[in-house]
């Protein structure tokens, strides 16, 4: 995916030390960055903190940014490494329930809304969701981030391939194995 012309111009301005231009890039990508970090770390405060820190580091390193690349692809590598370091350094598992919305539009509550017509089916689906959500946090952070990006954030294979710097077929394959591992974690949880 080629960067658009205006983005290149903003980057050139950033490379001359223009913080306002960098503010434009931050505004463009902050939500994506936040949700990607949330997929890795699972808590609002940490995701906010890490995504902002990654932007600050990107600004410091912007002089070495290679023209022709997309800013977000480059920034993603910084963010991903920051998040992985954070997750590995953290001893205890994150409190993950607070990051999940009950409503499919991401509004207030805590679990995804159910579309099952019967109460029993709704209970079963809710339990399944709860187990699956917990199982996500048993996974390796890169597997989790991939599943979150594809299924929860609806990131295209094309974009994932660009971010992961590999062919789309490889992304599909990694997603398949991540899905299998998720299923295994879930089965273990459900006994």
């Amino acid at each position, binding site marked *: 995916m080629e960067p658009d012309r205006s983005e290149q111009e903003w980057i050139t301005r950033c490379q001359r030390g223009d913080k306002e231009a960098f503010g434009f890039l931050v505004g463009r990508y*902050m939500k994506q960055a*936040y949700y990607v970090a949330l997929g890795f770390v699972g808590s609002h405060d940490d995701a906010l903190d890490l995504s902002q820190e990654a932007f*600050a580091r990107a600004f410091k390193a912007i002089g*070495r940014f290679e023209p022709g690349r997309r800013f977000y692809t*480059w920034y993603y590598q910084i963010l991903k490494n920051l998040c992985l370091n954070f997750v590995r350094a953290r001893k205890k598992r994150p409190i993950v329930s607070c990051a999940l919305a009950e409503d499919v539009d991401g509004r207030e509550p805590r679990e995804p809304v159910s579309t099952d017509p019967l109460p029993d089916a709704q209970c079963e689906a809710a339990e399944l969701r709860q187990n699956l959500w917990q199982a996500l946090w048993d996974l390796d952070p890169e597997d989790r981030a991939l599943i979150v990006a594809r299924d929860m954030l609806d990131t295209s294979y094309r974009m994932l391939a660009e971010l992961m710097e590999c062919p789309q077929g490889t992304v599909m394959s990694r997603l398949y194995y991540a899905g299998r591992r998720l299923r295994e974690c879930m089965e273990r949880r459900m006994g």
Partner: protein
Amino acid sequence: MTELNEREVTLLMKALDGALTDAERVEFEQLLSASSTLRDEWQSLKRVKEVTMTMKFKRPAEETWDHYWAGVYARIERGLAWLLISIGAAIFLAVGIYQMVLSLLEDVATPLYLKIGVGAVALGFAILVVSVLREKWNTWKTDKYKEVKR
């Protein structure tokens, strides 16, 4: 469990996304009827996918985005501040140590063995600094991900 081949994985993932073309759908159905492994994988991953698709993160309050840039800006400023403090502190320290070593060596009352000891420590430290800096420089020159903080 028998492993799926690359084509089966591709079709399976496309099927999970509802992104199969007509020809691929026919091919996938043929593979499904021929392979119980693929059938099992399809059923279980479809169920997992149906659930993950309904999960969404909470949306942060709008103020989060309003103040986002200010948070990044503060970090950039603080980074610059720390850089300046570090450079200043390093200069103070280096000059202080240099003056101390010099005064010890120039002092006629300082015994010879102490002068040799101080000189050896200073020389060893200088070699160590140069060695570390040279190693860092070589690593930096050859690292394609040098912009990435590990």
